[in-house]
């Protein structure tokens, strides 16, 4: 959060099908979206980790989140 997301704009533009422009304001909003997404992902992974009685989040926890969404 304190750091910029390097190359976020580039990746979005790369993945967009057609030609697209991105304003600097919307770039900030994109960062917001990613942060929110990561936040909820981390939260969900944390609950699953707790279910497994583990204080550490592991890859299988995150995968479960993805599958059982």
């Amino acid at each position, binding site marked *: 959060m304190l750091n910029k997301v390097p190359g976020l704009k580039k990746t979005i533009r790369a993945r967009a099908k057609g030609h697209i422009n991105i304003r600097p304001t*919307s770039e900030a909003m994109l960062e*917001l*979206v990613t*942060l929110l997404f990561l936040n909820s*992902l*981390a939260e969900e992974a*944390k609950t699953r980790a*707790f279910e497994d*009685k583990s204080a550490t989040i592991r*890859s299988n926890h995150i995968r479960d989140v993805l599958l059982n969404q």
Partner: protein
Amino acid sequence: MDNTEDLSARFILGQILSTEIPRTPMIPSGSTQAPSSSGTRRSSRISGRDAGAQTPTDIVRHSMRRRISQSITQKSQPAPRRTAPFVRRKPRSSASMLFDDEQSPRILLKNILMTENVKSPLVHEKTPSGEPEPPLASSSTTNTHHSIELSDLDLSDLTVGNVISTAKGLNRKRPRRSLNVTAFEKRLRGADAEAEERSNEASSDISSLSLSSSTSLSLKTPFVDVGTERKGLQRKVSQRRKITEEEFGAAVDKQQITGGTRFLPGKQDLSDTTHCEGFTLGLSKLSEPDVTTDILHCNTALYPQPDAITSDLSVMATQDKLTVAASQIQKDLEEREESMRESEEELNKVQSQAEEEGDVPDDVSQRENEAVSRSEEEVIVSGINAEEEEGTADSEAQENIEAEVVVFDFQEEVVESESQEEVVVFESQEEVVVFESQEEVFESDSQEEVVESESQQEVVESESQQEVVESESQEEVVESESQEEVVESESQEEVVESESQEEVVESESQEEVVESESQEEVVESESQAEVVESESQEEVVESESQEEVVESESQEEAVAASDSDEDEDASQTSNKESSSFHPEPDHRADPESVADGEEHVDKAEHPSEDYPTDFKPRATMDSSSQFEEDGITSGSNKDDGKTERQRSERLDSNLELISRRSCQSEGALVVPIVQEEDLDKAREGLSEVKSKDLGSNLEMEGDENMVEPSNPEQSDASDTEDEEYPTEFSPEEEEDEEDISSKTPAFVRAKRNFFIPDPSDSPTVFKDNQASGTTQAVPAAKPKRARQVKKRSTARKALPKSYLMTVFRHFAKTKVASDVYPVLDEIMDKFFDRLADDLETYAAHAKRTTIDVEDVVLLLKRQGYVNDKVPVEVLIEKYLRMDQRRLLIPIATSGNVVIPKIRK
């Protein structure tokens, strides 16, 4: 009759009558006073009555009524009030009474008394506190006075006292029964003293008083029965209520004014009791307890609030979960730690064993014995594998070690084998070996094919060995793939990759080169931590080029040595020189171009600052590469004995060219690959180099540069080329003349660079190339290179690992294992794909080609992050940095300026 019993009544009446007359003037005026509704009514009644009353009794009655009404209305005048009740009662009672109002004064008095009882509060007020103990006798007398003015007080006192006394007894019980006269009288007598005390007691006094009064009346007069009957017939209730209506308010006021004067205790009590009966009791029984308790507990809600309860419960629950989880987690951690320790120990054991075994092959480093060593190593490796497997654990080290222990495979096999072999080979280089092996393993794991595992191994071996055991290991570099082409055993002393090994130039040159190479290797040891494959490739290329040059020069060892010394300085010049060697047949150019392409590819893919100048010379290398090729061919034609070397050189050069050209164009790759196929097995190294180069960084390129110039120079100025080789590979090379020296440094560099950028891509490819030390590797390298290129372009991660892990850890707030990164990457990939898709759709829907803030806001709404309760601004404030916030949320500054400008 009643004289004895009800003295008070008669006395009162008599006194009233006696004193009443002079009070006539009050009749007209007093009657009209009626602030209270009841008073008005009564006054009206009274007035009505007055009109018709003519008889003395009537007159008396009327006067009484007036007084009562007056007393009621005029709080300050106790006398009228006193009379009021009498008057009021009079009419009421008279109305209700069966008897005529004009009946005997007894009736009147009775009515008066009855009314008086109800008027207890008034009585209180009126009666001064100085009459705490009006005796019955006196009370009777005084009551008569009361009737007029203060007589009311007395009267009321009496009655009140009587009533109070009786009422008190009844208060507790709240009975509505008729009292015994005797009991009543007793109370009367004994209650005077207590009148004051009870004066303040309002509860149930009224009822008792009324009861007592009625009873007293009833007892003493024939009306008693009637009264009692009437009482029982609800008269009291009706009367009481009427009184309460009037008197309640008055009584309350009185009480408020006078904190319960003892003067009119009875009355007050009466009034209080009257209304208390109706209200207080009910309240206390019904609502008060609930209300009071609720008030006490500050819980005035209409219904219980489950939130507090549930919240508490939830908190408790969560806490419990956490505590439980924590305890469990601790247990797990402990268990894991133990397992880890065990595994680590095992690993260490295995490593040590591997090292020991590695010594064996080292001893037989001679290429001649390589085969034997290989076999031995294989055995050892297998043994190590077994041991290692026993200690399997989470650590990757084990995997690496196992990989290393795997039998040496010159050909495509598990990439891990490379690392294993390295471990075996490198005795003292435990750390380095492990490290490198790990790296290789890591790369190999991600790679699809393990073709160049062998070559990689060799390279790694050469590298690591050189570093640690500069002088010694170098000479005895044991190449797992110990190519048969090793020409000179002496040269073999140094680390020679599969390709270059065979082509070891010459002892002399080798020695010198070794020295320089060793130096370089030492320098490069640091960089070896990276891509291994690329380095190996580079080295191979370099070695090849070097070899070629050497061969062409036919023993340009000295030159090579000198070149190595110059190294960097001459790199550029050499490059230029190489460019000068353009006159070469095309067939040469092809491999050269290929090599160049490779190098270029490497450069392009992994731009590094190490060899910025290499690009330029490389550009010219194409032609030179051709020249190199020619040189190679020529070289090969030169000496049969040197065919191998030449071939190796060609391979090297080809590899270089390929690597150089790879970046330029994939076609170039194809060409050289094809051409390489034509070459002998010696091309294995080339292919390896090619593959390595593809994935290598500039280090490779740098090496390539050195190689490139060396290649073109092969045919001609071997000296310069040699110089170029070493110069370029100065940091890394200088083991086996050109081959070894060039290969190792490049290899090391390549390795390093390789690992950093795309561990998942290039390593596999490179390793595959290396492993396949056959012609197959050549064609395979080409497609792999192409694949690598494509992969690299598409394999770019959306977010760097550091950033991603940092943010995730921050949001997770708990420990996060580092193995989540790949999964996270995957997820972020998908996320960005969908995000871009959605935003693009939204913008297109709005007929825009620019993603706007509102598009993203719409997305957030759809996802549920933004809703009525959570506006966007809240999220912005929460998550974004200041510079971003400033963009999004307008901030007013001085000068009537708002930033950013709000566009509407």
